[in-house]
Every structure is written in C-alpha cells, then in structure tokens.
C-alpha cells in the first residue's frame, strides 16, 4: 500500500529530476520573465548561453510600465531601456512576449493565468515573490532571485530545498463583505509575517472551497506575506470551469488528456502535514493593516494597538516605531482615520471580480479623496469597460488607468507622496513601498472603495447592506 501523500508532496515529487544533499533539481513547466529580469538575461549573455526552453518561457511587461499615456514613448530612459531589452531578449531567444502594447499585457500573475498558461500540476517560477499566486490552480508556484532566473533560462530547472507541508483549514461561512483578502490578512496577523517560513501552505476547508478562482489567487498571492514559500489550493470544478477554453489551455483531446492527468491532485485522506492550523471563517471581519508589516493587521472595528500595554519590550519597540512611521495614535479606533488617497490595483486585488466589488460600493458616490484604479490586466480593463465599471470609477472622481504593477511597488513613478496615507488593495505596507514616506493601509477592494467614499478607514459592510436592501 502506498502511504497517503499531501497534494504538495505529489506535485513536488513529480518534478524532481535528481537530488543532491538537501536539494532537489526540479523541472520547470512555466517560466515567466518581466522587464525587471534584466540582471538574469545579462548573466546568460555573459556566458553566451541560449534559453533552454523558449516554448515554456513567457515574457510580460508589468513592473515598470507606465499606466498613463501609453500612446507616447516612455519618458524615463531607464524604463524605456528595460522594456526594450525585454523585447530584444524575446526576439533573440524566441519566447512569446505580452509586451507593452499587446492585448494580453497585464500583471504577470493576472495575465499568465488569464491566458490559460497556468495549469494544475505545473511548476511555475518567476523572478517575483508573488508567484505564489499560481498555486491557486493546484500548481507549485514560487518566486526566485535573478541568479535562479538565469539558471532556469539556461537549464529549465531550479535547485530547491523541499519546504515542509502546512495545511491551513478555514471552515465555515464568510460574512457578507468579507473575502479572500481578509482571510489572508487574518492568518498572517495570527501567525506572523514569517509564520509560515520554510513551508508550502495548502489552503483547505469549506470557506476556501467556496472561493472563486479570483479569491483563491488573492489568498495564494499573499502566502509570501506570511513567509510561506508557496500557497496551494487543490483543483476542482471551479478551477477546471475557469480554465476551459482559455487561449493557451489545452483544447479538445488534449484537454481530455489533461483532465485525466489532473484527477487525484488532492491531499490523500490521512496524509500527514508537518503543521496544521485552523481558522473559523465566521470569526473573520474586514481587516486593515495599521503598521509597516502585513502581520500588523486588525479588524476595522479594532483600535490602534498600544505599545505601553505590550509585555515584550522588543515587540513594544516595534509597534512604537511602526505607529511613529504611520502617524497613528495608540488606542484610537482604526475606523475614521482620515486617508489622503486610495489605490485599487496589483496582482493581489485587481481582477474583474475585485473591480466589480469596488464599483458596487462606489456606484452613485463621489470619492472624497483622489484615487487610482489600475486593472490587473489589459483584458480585465477591456471587460470592465464593457460592463461600464470604468464609468462608475470615473464618476466617483477616480483615475482609470492602464494595467501594471503601478502604485503597489512604485517602480514606474506611480507614487504615494511622503506622509500621505493610502487605502490600498495591494500586498505590502512596508515602509516606503508605495514611495518614500508613504503610509499604506492594506485592505480589500470593498474596503478601499468605502474609504474613498468617506475619506477615512471605514467598515464597508454597512455600504453593502444598503446596496442589498
């Protein structure tokens, strides 16, 4: 009898080419590169090596691309050079490119799955930590550094130490207005920003099963913010229905063969995990962050933590420093904190479902603060415009711009000004992440939309109730 195995073990073992010491050499099924991968291509050029598998290599322009005035040449010479270098590398090495003006362009973790490139059972890597997103399909997805990107380009393999397996089970029903973003921030607040370090996290339980693919991608995307090497959701009918017919997904007889190979991609009954954590979905409220790490998260109904009440001096010091940077007063309610702007975008929360949810809150309202909405991909942008969502955002006074990493990482010049407070659907509230001195509060799309309407951190639930009534 074969011992029961976790989904993670099945996926990992299927990709092992060989092993040495505590590392396995893994075959890579999908390698996404972006314009920030220039260091890796330079290494490849130094050695005069070709790309081993151009058919499994996909370029996407996202990290640095402008989100405004794409009809004009790129103004910043460094950015123009990087985008051009990616185009040249795609042409030289013969891999497909979702370039700046391609209809498939978008943030790599939105555009890749959307094209049907991310499939159950695949191993997906990219020089970006949010590659964990792709685990939503029952794939192994993890971020790598530039040296590893060069290695994958040259060999289509990557050396990795096998992470431990952790299962995070979230059972029960989510309350209205609570979603995948809240689930993710809730577990990260509980376990810490390095709580799942060295682990592959399989998300399980009825609340996870009930999530759409967009929600599962949000949940897996944020795995890295809890320190996990990757996140996983076992594929099911939701996954297969979402994938069927996508441009690069298998078609016809190939689809049937693929479906056959995907059967059994689940943890076996009785499979042993190195660690088990459970959460009750019913206890999760809309979450906002108050500090400078994603672990600094609390329900919107909570108050700003007080370092004076903290027993551990190191922890108290960290809270004090975070509140000083964030300009928050201990003990005050989080709700009602004035914000200067909002941002709806990023690989975490800018899929069509996210934009629909935000638009539902904003419809008929005027935003009290400026804000930007950057769709997760150019396809999401087109679909949103077909549905008239752009009109709702514009009518509210928000900027409707092109797709890219934009204000999540601030590489393209989309910044939050020093000292400004931003309600953001992104993934990192690190110091300076959205620009030097920027104060970021992470939250879901409905919460960012509610913050736009009131100009403060706001519980979105009453807005949703009003809509439902």
């Amino acid at each position, binding site marked *: 009898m074969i011992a029961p195995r976790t989904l993670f073990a099945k996926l990992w073992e299927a990709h092992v080419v060989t092993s040495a010491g505590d590392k396995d050499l893994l075959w890579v099924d999908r390698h996404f590169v972006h314009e920030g991968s220039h260091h890796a291509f330079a290494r490849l050029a130094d050695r005069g090596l070709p790309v081993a598998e151009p058919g499994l290599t996909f370029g996407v322009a996202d990290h640095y691309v402008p989100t405004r005035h794409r009809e004009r040449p790129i103004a910043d010479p460094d950015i123009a050079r990087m985008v051009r270098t990616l185009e040249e590398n795609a042409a030289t090495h013969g891999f497909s490119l979702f370039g700046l003006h391609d209809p498939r362009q978008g943030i790599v973790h939105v555009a890749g799955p959307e094209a049907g490139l991310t499939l159950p059972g695949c191993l997906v890597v990219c020089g970006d930590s949010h590659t964990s997103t792709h685990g939503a399909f029952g794939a192994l997805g993890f971020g790598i550094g530039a040296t590893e990107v060069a290695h994958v380009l040259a*060999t289509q393999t990557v050396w990795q*130490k096998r992470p431990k397996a952790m299962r995070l089970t979230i059972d029960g029903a989510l309350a209205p207005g609570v979603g995948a973003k809240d689930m993710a921030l809730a577990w990260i607040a509980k376990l810490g920003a390095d709580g799942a*370090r060295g682990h592959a996290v399989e998300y399980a339980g009825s609340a996870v099963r009930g999530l759409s693919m967009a929600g599962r991608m949000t949940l897996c995307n944020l795995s890295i913010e809890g320190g996990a090497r990757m996140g996983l959701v076992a594929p099911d009918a939701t996954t297969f229905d979402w994938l069927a017919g996508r441009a*690069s997904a298998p078609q016809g007889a190939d*689809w049937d063969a*693929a479906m056959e190979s995907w059967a059994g991609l689940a943890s076996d009954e009785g499979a042993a995990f190195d660690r088990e954590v459970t959460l009750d979905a019913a206890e999760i409220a809309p979450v906002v962050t108050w500090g400078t790490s994603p672990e600094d998260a609390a329900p919107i109904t909570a108050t700003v933590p007080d370092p004076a009440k903290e027993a551990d001096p190191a922890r108290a010091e960290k809270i004090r420093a975070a509140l000083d940077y964030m300009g928050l007063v201990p003990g005050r309610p989080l709700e009602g904190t004035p914000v200067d702007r909002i941002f709806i975008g990023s690989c975490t929360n800018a899929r069509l479902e996210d934009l629909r949810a935000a638009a539902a809150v904003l419809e008929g309202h005027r935003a009290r603060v400026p804000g930007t909405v950057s769709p997760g991909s150019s396809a999401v942008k087109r679909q949103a415009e077909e549905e008239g969502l752009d009109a709702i955002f514009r009518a509210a006074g928000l900027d409707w711009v092109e797709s890219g990493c934009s204000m999540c990482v601030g590489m393209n010049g989309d910044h939050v000004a020093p000292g400004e407070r931003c309600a953001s659907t992104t993934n990192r509230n690190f110091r300076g992440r959205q620009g030097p001195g920027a104060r970021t509060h992470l939250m879901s799309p409905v919460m960012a939309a509610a913050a736009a309407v009131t100009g403060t951190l706001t519980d979105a639930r009453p807005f949703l109730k009003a809509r439902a009534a």
Partner: protein
Amino acid sequence: MRGWTRHDGLAVALPVEGIDTDQLIPARFMSRPRAAGYGAYLLHDMRRDGEGRPDPEFPLERPEAAGASILVARRNFGGGSSREAAVYALIDAGFRAVVAPSFGDIFAGNAVNNGLLPAQVSAEDAERLLAALAAGPLEAEVDIDAGAVTLGGLSCAFALSEAQREKLANGWDDIDVTRRHEEAIAAHRATLAAARPWLWPRAARDQGAR
C-alpha cells in the same frame, strides 16, 4: 564569485526586526545597471531623515562603522520581495555575512548564490551579539566550516546546510553544477513530452485572445 570559508571583519548591530528587501534597496534604484555598484542604495531610506539627509545616528552612518562587513539584526531579515538587488546592495557595500535569528527564504537563497552568508543564530544568541555591539562595532570572525561567529568573547553557532556551506566555500555557480545532470534533465523532459505533450502550449494558440 570567489569562495570563502573564513572572514575577519568589523561587525555592526542593526537591532531592528523585519528588515524587508524593500528597506534593503528601495525599488526606484533597481532599474540601474549593476556595473555602477548598488552599495550606495543599501538601506537608502532607512538611513536618512524625512528631508533625505543621512541620519548621523543610524548605526551604518556612524564613523566607527566604516568598513563594516558583518551585520547583526533581528528576526525575519530579508522578507518580502524576491529582488536579488537587496543582496547586491549588501555585497557592494562590503558585507560578507548577515547574522539574524531568521531570514526570508528567497533572500537566503539569493544571498548564498552571491557569496553572502545568511548566518541563522538562535534568538537568544542574536540578542547577546546585539548587546555586545551596543556600544559600537567590534572586530569579529565568521568561520563557515566551524559554523560559528565570534566577537567580544562570545561564540555563537549558526545553522547552514551542507549545500549552502559547499556553495559558499567553492563559489560555485549552479549552472556549472547542473550541466553535470544534463542527461537526467533530458530524460525527464523526454518522458514528460511523451506523456503530456499538451504542457507545451502551441504558439498559434498563444496568438488569439480568448
């Protein structure tokens, strides 16, 4: 990359928890070519005040920290973004080792790939080292074979896998190592291509939108 097993240098304390890679090098500097050096961008914003002036009280700005090559910090060093530029900034600023109770997984991998030692010590030892360095930087010794960092009369063990130790000691580039496994890779590919040819998306499919 040259290998190394022993390093003597100046150790400096940065008693901060959760120094993410966005702190180590803010994103706006990463579009620049490496050739010019990334050392000047290390902790660029953290070491400056609100007006962008260097903060003379910041541990790395103090004159006695000049030339430091060993950094001691608190938990979860190098979490967040996979940017290898965070390691380049440390290396180009002269650092050979970072000592902390825990590291971001991707950062630790990137570090070893560039000859920077991520020396994982216990939380208690990290606090002892930080206390010893509280008055200012001290000469220290890092020994990869012995797995220990020594300074101010303290000797603290750090964890390192055999693979990490070998790579740091030999300065190996993985591409050379992996090429020795060419046959195994080719065999894996052939098996996969026969069993699951659909894993290679047809270029034609790539062209059309859904």
